[in-house]
Structures are given as structure tokens and as C-alpha cells.
């Protein structure tokens, strides 16, 4: 909401600077986002009357003018403008003056004649060109009325004003007006306020009944107030009103339309003026649109209406979209003789949805959307009537029509002064509270027998005040939020902290960071075709699809973290970054078969790497994670994740439960997505990981007896996994085997084709005595026999 400092001063006494005012109302709840002087650079532009105008003797396209600018002698101005004429009053930037772009005028000679300044256009005066007509912005601006030469244009056109851009919170629709904000200023500064002058409207009905009847046929209109005027003259509105409108960024049009806009800015109530004769009926019916109805709005666009949109009709067809924009069929023109002035209250949601669906927003709709109160309707009419009559635009046709089926009921709130003190944490008297509330026009009734109780009556425009907490806020904000002491909470002491899972997540993060992996952050959106392309999903998969995504690319909630990691790798590889090591711990989202449940969310950890790493590098990291979380008994089985190289991937199992997968990205996907040739990814289910974690540590006595080790080199078929060999060796552990370590893998000339050699070092130890050769030999024999029988393993020569 844009308000001007001087306009505020029309209603409220302001004994301070615009800057101080902005600061103080911000701290009392009316947040000033920006404060700017209008046309800050412009100075010294004055009104000039062109006395004579002649062709430049030496130049075809230049004119030499003598101009009175309020000094002893007229000055000479050379111009190339073609729209100026003798006796015209124009803005003149005299020598020393500064125009909007910051240029300062000096004397300039044009073919032998010196120009002592220049005439100005709208833009050079620093005015917003969008608020003027095409003729007005092309060429030199010519004033409608003769001004005294020498009049300072800056103060004439803007009144040296300041513009405050104010943020209005959703509950304060009453502050969407200059007068509404003036009331806040008055409460904040504790200075008197002066209400705009209203016309005494007298009795309802009267002569107007000969012209009009009004019917409300929808609950979306709570009040419709109509008055009628006989036009005396349609002309530009008075200069003072135009200045106010221009500073509020509203384009002046004519005296009648300008009054409706002025009153809307001043009171917050949108008004609409119809050309009565072009309504072609004697009635107004407010109803919802019928099927296939259309209306051409004032911006000359045809609007197709939907059945629940609220319309103002002449009983037959729409003449305005209620609360949003008038129809072109009933617009005020130069020929208008009778004006019907509408002041009405429409449902905020209806206006918002209609405006949204039509893609049509206006100053009016934005005010209705916030919610207006029906009592404002008659004040706005009385104010508009006062202005229309006082500027000589119209005469009032006696009486008015007011359809107001359900009157707004006054509200009262019971509140205890002690409770306010206790709730806010202050200690002020009830008397002081009442003073604050009175400054906000909130009436308070006290009970002489009860020093604590207050019965509070908010004014009709404060629909946000409903409960005692609302009253506590009003007291607190006028007392000053920053005068409330800062205290430390008393009451029960709570320990706080992280849950086991949250601690494990922290540990997992630490392990990954400590291992050289950097944390990433990606969005939660993806799309099914992309996952299908990466072979991470099937087109028929049940996934979490949004009803209203931002584009098809972001239409699905991801059910894997791997796709985004590939994008990260792609980005980094593309940027020629080497040694990519990344991870992210985040949620994935899954379809819930139970239609009554929310989608299922799973916390997962994804790890990715390229450059200077191989399958075992990533597997080693995964093993590090398990070791750090105290998880053992992990098994790796070749899996079927189609994203991966078929021979370089593993599904990871803990106690026969698959908790994740790791692998090298399939070369075809690498090729299609321009990824590094060797790209590795792992995804783990965090909940399963945390569940399996075992962080309790118990000390085991250090061994007192020496160990013995035996190395064996086996020759096996190339396809036999080492894991199977280890399992068989492990199965012979009668308490003597301390560790089994693979230390060599060999394939080559030294052994038969199709075979490989695996060498293990097996360490034996007993806690209670030194082992003998016989002890060990027995176990070794049975291991070798078993390996031979089950895997056709032979000792290498």
C-alpha cells in the first residue's frame, strides 16, 4: 500500500519528520518498507508563460520563445518542440535547475542565440509517464490552467511530498486506506485525528426510487448501497485531487471517476460509477453469472464468465464483475448525464477466486480480497457525495437505496488487566491500558466493583479483534514491544537433545565428511520419465505425483536420491572439477497402498564418486560406515539395479534384509548422460542402518598367548566368489580362528586358463593356551578338504 506523507497530514497531526514517522509506525505494527521523496533530484523547475514564439532565423527546426518565469525580465528559450504556442503555460527548467535525470541546466547557444533553460516533458519533470495520456507525454507538458509565472513546479505537481510503501498484514484490511493508516499514526504518536468531511445523507428512498431498484440475489454480497447524481459538468478533477492521485500512482481521468478513486484510496472502500442511461434498465440485480455469459470489461477485453462468479447486472446481462472491474457497456463518458454510484460489500473469497480465474486484478479487487466490513459502505458514499457536490461535478438525486440484509453486529470482549500483565510479562495499570486502547478508538467499560475487569468494544472496522489475546496485543504494541523486558523462561527445566536416530545421523554425516565426502542439497522433485530413462523406475510404477507441479519436470516426489546425485556429478564433471566425492542424507517418498494413509517417507543416504576411485573404494567407504556404526554380518550379493554395470554392483544385506545398493553406473547410461566413464553410487536406507547400529562398546581382554598364522593359496574357477571361500573357512571356526584375510588375487599365465588364485592368511589363537601345530593342522585339513569338495579348490603349487 502506497501512502503519502502530506495526504496523511490532512487527517492527523504529525509533529515529526517522515523518517521518524516511518520508524515509529513500523515499531507499532505498520511496517514501512520504503520511504522516498518524490522526484528527489528535481529542483528549480518553474511555471513559465510563453509570451512570444518565433522561428529561429538560422535554423528551420528551432523556435525562439520569450518566456515569463516570474523574474523582472522574461528569459529566452530555444526549443524544437512543436506542441508549444504563445500564451501556453509550460514547465521551464531555468539555468541552475535540475531535471529528473540529474542534469543541471546551463546557458547554451544555438546558432548564435543563447537559450536560458529548457521546456520540460512529463518525464523530465520526474513524473510517472504511465499515469498520463499519450498526448501529454509526447512533447512538452502544457498545464491545463494558467499558473503564476515562477510557481515552483515540484511543489505544485507533488506538493514536495514523501511516499511511504507500507506492508499491510492480512488481518488489517482497515489499513488499506490513507485514513486507516492515519488512525494508526494517531494512535502511535498520540496526536489528534480529523475525519474526512461527509455529506449528511438524510433518509433512504426518496426521488431515487423513480429511477432505480436494487436486488441482491447472492449471499456473496452482504450490502449494496446506491446513490444517483445528475451531472453538471464532466471535466478534469481539481488540481489538488490530481496531485493526490498521481502521488498514489493512480491516473486522473475525469472528475467523477477521480472521486471514486480518491475515496477508495482515502477510505479503503472501492466504488464504481455507472452511466445510468447505458444500463438500459431501472434496476440493479447482484447475482452469480449464468451459463455461457460474457462481459466486456473496462479494459476492452471480453471475459467468459463461470457460473459462480458474482456479477452486477441490469436484470438481464452483466454490467460489471462485482468488486473487480466495471463493464465497458456502462462506462462514464463525456456524454454521461446521470451517474449511478455503487458502494457495496462483496465476499472476499469470491472476489479473490474470480479475479484469479479471470486473470484480472485491480485496486478494487485487491481491497475486497482482504475483506472489507459492510459499515464502510455508507461512509464511502457520504464521502463521495460530499466531494462530487463540493467540486461542482454533480447534483445529488434525493435519497439512496441501501440493501443490507444482515447487519454487522458489534463485538465485546471481556479481559482482565492482570491477565494482560501476566501474559505479556509487564506490570502496568488498567488506567494505562485503557489510554492505549482509547488511542485506537477501542471503547472500554469498567466495573466500579472490579478493579481488574475490562469490557472492550472494538470499532466496527476492527474485525480482527475477537479474543482477549487480540486486546493484549493492542496494549503491548502501543506500550511498545521493545519496552517489554527480556526474561529467561522459568518453570520446568528440560534436558533437550537429540534422539538416538538423530545422533546416528550426525555420526553418519561425520564419518562421510571425515572420509572426504562433501554434503550436497537437492530438491525433492523429479519426474517419472527421467527415472525410467535412468533405469531406476518403470513407467507403470506407483509414485507420488503432484496435482499441480511447477512443470512436468518437477511433477513427482522422488523415490530415490540417486538421480539427483547423477545430476550433481554431471554438473561437476561439466565444470571440469576433479575427484568428485558427494553425499546427501534426505527423504524419499513412496506410494502408500493404504488409501487412508499419507505417502511413505524414508530417510536415505546417497553417496557418489568419480575420478580416482573404483568399486572397492566405494565399497570400502560403505564398510567404514558399517564399522563406525558397529554393524557386522553384512553381506554383498550381485544385484539387479539396472542403473548399474551388471558385474559391478552389489545389493547390501544385513540379516537377510536388503538395506541398500552400490555399484558402478552402467556404461550406456554413462554415455547417454555424459558422465565420467567410471561413476560410482551407493544408496542406503537410514532407518534400517540406525536400527542395526550397535554403539555400545565392551572391552575384551588383550590376548595373553601368541597367535599362529597359516597362509594358503587356492586355485579355483574364475567365477567362484571370495565370499563363498571365506564362508566355508569361517564354518570351521571352532573358536580358534581369529581372522581370515585375503591378501592376493591372481589371474594369469602362471595358472590354468579359466582359473584364478586366491591367497588367504588365517590367524589362529586360543585365549587360554598356546596352540600346537597339531591343533592347527587338524583345522587346516578339514578346511582344505571342504573347500575341495564344495568349490573344487586346490592348493596352488
Amino acid at each position, binding site marked *: 500500500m502506497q501512502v503519502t506523507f502530506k495526504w496523511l497530514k490532512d487527517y492527523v497531526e504529525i509533529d515529526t519528520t517522515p523518517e521518524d514517522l516511518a520508524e515509529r509506525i513500523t515499531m507499532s505494527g505498520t511496517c514501512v518498507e520504503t520511504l522516498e521523496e518524490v522526484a528527489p533530484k528535481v529542483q528549480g523547475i518553474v511555471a513559465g508563460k510563453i509570451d512570444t514564439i518565433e522561428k529561429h532565423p538560422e535554423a528551420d527546426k528551432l523556435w525562439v520563445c520569450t518566456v515569463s518565469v516570474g523574474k523582472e525580465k522574461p528569459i529566452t528559450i530555444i526549443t524544437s518542440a512543436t506542441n508549444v504556442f504563445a500564451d501556453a503555460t509550460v514547465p521551464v527548467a531555468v539555468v541552475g535547475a535540475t531535471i529528473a535525470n540529474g542534469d543541471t541546466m546551463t546557458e547554451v547557444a544555438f546558432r548564435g542565440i543563447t537559450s536560458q533553460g529548457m521546456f520540460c516533458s512529463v518525464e523530465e519533470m520526474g513524473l510517472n509517464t504511465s499515469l498520463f495520456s499519450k498526448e501529454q507525454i509526447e512533447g512538452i507538458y502544457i498545464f491545463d490552467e494558467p499558473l503564476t509565472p515562477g510557481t515552483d513546479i515540484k511543489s505544485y505537481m507533488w506538493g514536495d511530498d514523501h511516499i511511504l510503501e507500507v506492508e499491510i498484514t492480512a488481518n488489517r484490511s482497515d489499513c488499506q486506506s490513507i485514513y486507516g493508516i492515519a488512525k494508526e499514526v494517531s494512535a502511535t504518536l498520540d496526536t489528534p485525528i480529523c475525519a474526512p468531511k461527509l455529506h449528511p445523507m438524510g433518509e433512504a428512498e426518496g426521488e431515487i426510487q423513480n429511477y432505480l431498484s436494487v436486488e441482491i440475489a447472492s449471499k456473496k454480497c452482504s450490502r449494496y448501497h446506491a446513490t444517483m447524481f445528475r451531472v453538471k459538468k464532466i471535466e478534469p478533477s481539481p488540481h489538488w485531487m490530481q496531485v493526490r492521485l498521481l502521488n498514489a500512482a493512480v491516473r486522473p481521468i475525469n472528475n467523477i471517476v477521480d472521486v471514486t478513486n480518491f475515496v477508495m484510496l482515502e477510505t479503503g472502500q472501492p466504488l464504481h460509477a455507472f452511466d445510468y442511461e447505458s444500463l438500459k434498465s431501472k434496476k440493479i440485480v447482484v447475482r452469480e453469472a449464468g451459463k455461457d455469459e460474457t462481459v466486456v470489461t473496462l479494459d476492452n477485453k471480453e471475459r467468459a464468465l463461470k457460473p459462480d462468479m458474482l456479477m452486477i447486472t441490469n436484470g438481464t446481462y452483466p454490467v460489471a464483475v462485482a468488486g473487480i472491474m466495471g463493464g465497458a457497456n456502462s462506462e462514464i463518458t463525456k456524454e454521461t448525464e446521470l451517474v449511478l454510484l455503487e458502494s457495496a460489500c462483496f465476499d472476499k473469497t469470491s472476489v479473490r477466486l474470480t479475479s484469479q480465474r479471470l486473470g484480472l486484478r485491480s485496486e478494487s479487487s485487491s481491497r475486497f480480497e482482504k475483506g472489507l466490513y459492510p459499515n464502510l459502505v455508507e461512509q464511502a458514499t457520504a464521502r463521495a457525495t460530499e466531494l462530487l457536490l463540493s467540486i461542482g461535478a454533480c447534483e445529488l438525486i434525493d435519497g439512496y437505496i441501501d440493501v443490507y440484509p444482515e447487519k454487522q453486529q458489534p463485538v465485546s470482549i471481556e479481559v482482565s488487566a492482570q491477565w494482560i500483565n*501476566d501474559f505479556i510479562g*509487564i506490570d502496568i495499570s488498567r488506567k494505562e491500558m485503557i489510554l492505549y486502547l482509547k488511542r485506537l478508538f477501542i471503547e472500554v467499560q469498567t466495573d466500579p466493583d472490579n478493579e481488574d475487569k475490562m469490557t472492550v468494544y472494538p470499532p466496527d472496522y476492527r474485525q480482527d479483534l475477537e479474543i482477549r489475546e*487480540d486486546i493484549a496485543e493492542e496494549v503491548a504494541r502501543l506500550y511498545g*514491544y521493545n519496552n517489554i523486558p527480556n526474561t529467561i523462561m522459568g518453570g520446568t527445566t*528440560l534436558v533437550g537433545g537429540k534422539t538416538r536416530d538423530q545422533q546416528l545421523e550426525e555420526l553418519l554425516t561425520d564419518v562421510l565428511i571425515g572420509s572426504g565426502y562433501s*554434503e550436497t542439497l537437492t*530438491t525433492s522433485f523429479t519426474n517419472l520419465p527421467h527415472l525410467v530413462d535412468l533405469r531406476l523406475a518403470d513407467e507403470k510404477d506407483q509414485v507420488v505425483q503432484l*496435482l499441480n507441479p511447477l512443470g512436468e519436470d518437477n511433477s513427482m516426489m522422488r523415490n530415490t536420491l540417486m538421480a539427483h546425485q547423477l545430476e550433481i556429478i554431471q*554438473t561437476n564433471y561439466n565444470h571440469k572439477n576433479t575427484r568428485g566425492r558427494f553425499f546427501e542424507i534426505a527423504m524419499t517418498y513412496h506410494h502408500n497402498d493404504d488409501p487412508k494413509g499419507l505417502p511413505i*517417507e524414508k530417510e536415505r543416504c546417497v553417496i557418489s564418486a568419480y575420478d580416482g576411485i573404483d568399486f572397492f573404494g566405494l565399497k570400502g567407504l560403505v564398510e567404514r560406515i558399517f564399522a563406525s556404526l558397529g554393524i557386522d554380518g553384512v553381506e554383498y550379493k550381485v544385484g539387479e539395479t539396472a542403473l548399474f554395470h551388471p558385474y559391478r554392483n552389489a545389493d547390501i544385506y544385513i540379516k537377510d534384509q536388503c538395506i541398500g545398493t552400490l555399484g558402478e553406473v552402467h556404461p550406456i547410461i554413462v554415455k547417454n548422460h555424459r558422465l565420467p566413464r567410471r561413476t560410482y553410487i551407493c544408496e542406503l536406507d537410514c532407518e534400517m542402518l540406525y536400527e542395526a547400529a550397535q554403539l555400545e562398546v565392551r572391552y575384551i581382554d588383550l590376548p595373553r598367548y601368541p597367535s599362529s598364522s597359516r597362509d594358503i593359496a587356492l586355485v579355483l574357477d574364475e567365477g567362484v566368489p571370495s565370499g563363498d571361500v571365506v564362508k566355508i573357512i569361517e564354518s570351521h571356526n571352532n573358536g580358534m580362528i581369529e581372522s581370515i584375510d585375503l591378501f592376493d588375487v591372481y589371474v594369469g599365465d602362471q595358472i590354468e586358463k579359466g582359473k584364478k588364485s586366491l591367497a588367504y592368511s588365517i590367524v589362529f589363537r586360543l585365549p587360554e593356551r598356546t596352540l600346537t601345530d597339531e591343533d592347527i593342522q587338524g583345522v587346516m585339513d578339514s578346511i582344505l578338504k571342504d573347500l575341495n569338495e564344495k568349490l573344487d579348490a586346490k592348493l596352488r603349487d
Partner: protein
Amino acid sequence: MHKQLNELRDAFHKSTEEIQTLKDLEAIRVQYLGKKGRLTIALKGMGKLSPEERPTVGKLANVIRGEIEKTIQEKKEWLEEKKIDLEIQNEKLDITLPGRMPERGHRHPLNLVMSDLEKIFIGMGFSIAEGPEIEWSEYNFDHLNMPAEHASRDLQETFYYTEDIVLRTQTSPVQIRVMENNRPPLRIISPGRVYRSDEVDATHSPVFHQMEGLVIDQNITMSDLKGTLSLFAQKLFGDTVKTRFRPHQFYFTEPSAEMDVSCFKCGGTGCRVCGSGWIELLGCGMVHPNVLRHCDIDPNVFSGFAFGMGLERVAMTKYEINDLRLLFENDKRFLEQF
């Protein structure tokens, strides 16, 4: 015999004078003390001596043996040290060459900020609460006292999965779940992902992060809210940071406020980061009685406050990151700066 032994002694001392290597020294040791060494042989001849001579010769022989052993030991140590001295000469380093840093990963700046905040609040007795990101619209709006027709429920503002299920637009529904399932006293924070239908630009993203907090107990006042949040701001930005509270409006709270902190870069005089000297940090207020009542907490017995802030904004302000998209791009050169 005496003479023989003295000659042996002189010969030994003479031969050790020139010794330069451990190998030669060992040869001399064997020559004198070995099984067939000169002193060993000489001692074997002792049997032939008369009983009178034997003790004096024996004594001399032992003295000489001790002398030889001692000299060899000393010589050995000297030679060993000399050898190390020589080796050291070949081990000169240019210590100005760079060290080899062990590789480490980096935390994402947003999560750094999140864990800073978590630590501060945990220190004040808060726990961390979590809840679903895909949430009942009832929990995201209605239970938070959001009017039925409010614009934030529009399809243009909020992502919908079904008519009744939305991507949460704030982490506040977590607070409702906590209040429904636990009784006061409560002190929780709920950090997490939230969603709003904004196109991506330098300051907006449809996915972003918030941290909200909630305190419910008996006799919690607005001055407690101010004290707690001011203390938090000082722990986050330093002891000299000042706070100010401006009245505001949220459906979830009444009274409501926004808290600004004095700029931690310029100290509040106004700079490129803050503009006016103040940085808007969070929204807060006293929990609305309708919200408490919905969770079956009696507003006549309990009161509380809630607050919330956007973590992207805090991270961007703290690290002077000028484009939000950088946070989601994950360029290594960006990530490694934190």
C-alpha cells in the same frame, strides 16, 4: 706371560686406533675375544703356569679382557653415531614444500547453519521434533488456525498430492503433532524441508528449509519469548548483537511479532548486507488459544510461544551468498568453501 699379555694389550690398542667401520671392529673383536682369539688362546695357556704365577696372571688377563671389551663397545657406539651422522647428510628436506593434507569432506552451508541453530536450542533444553513433509492439509492449515478460505491454500501457492494432502508449506504441523501426542512442558524445534509454489530465482525456490520452535508451559510470557529469542540471536551472531521486535500477524500466534537483529557485519550502521542496519531474522508470537485448544491444552492453564525462520535466508546472510540457486547446484568449488 706378563710380558706376552702386555704385548697383546699394546697390539690391540694399536690396531683399534685406525678402525673406521663396524665390520673391521667386529673382525678385531673376533681376533682378540673370539673362540680362537688371541686373548682366549693366551688364557688357555694359563694351565701351564705355576700356582704362584696363576693368580697374578689371571688378574692381569681379566683386566685386559675388560679393557678390550670396553674399548670395543665405545668404539662401536662412536662408529654407529658417525654412520647416522653421515646418513642424515643425505636426508635434507625443503621444509617449505607443501604438506599433504588428509582429504576431508565439507558440510553444506545450509546444514552448517541448521546444526548451529540446533546446538544453540539444545543448549536451552529444546529437543528436535520431526514430521512428514507430505502432510494432511488439515495439519498444515486448519489446526494452525488458518482461515478456511485463505489464499495460501490456493493451487497457485501450495503443492497438492490429493485434495486433502499437501506438501507442507511450513514445519508448523510438526508442532501440532507434538502437542497432540505430548503434554506440556514442551520445548521443541522442528527443522526441515518445506514447499511453496514459487518459481526458482535468486531468492526463491519451491523447496526450502525452515526451523520453527515451540515452548509450552505454565506462565510463559511474551517477555520470555523476547528473552529467549534475543539470547538465541546473541549465541548465533555474537554477544554484541541487538534485537528488536515489530508487531506482525500470523494465524498461529497472537500477539505476533517479527524479530530483527542488528547487522552482524556492520554493527547496525547500515551496509551492503543489511541496508538499514537491521536484518529481519524470524517471525514469532504467543501460541494462539485456538491452536492450544485443538491440541487439548487448556489456554487458561498453559501458554507458550512459537517462532520460525527460513534457513536459506540465514545461510545466505551469514555467508554473503547472493544467489539461492548456488545452494542447490552443488558445484564442488562452492561446497569446498565451507
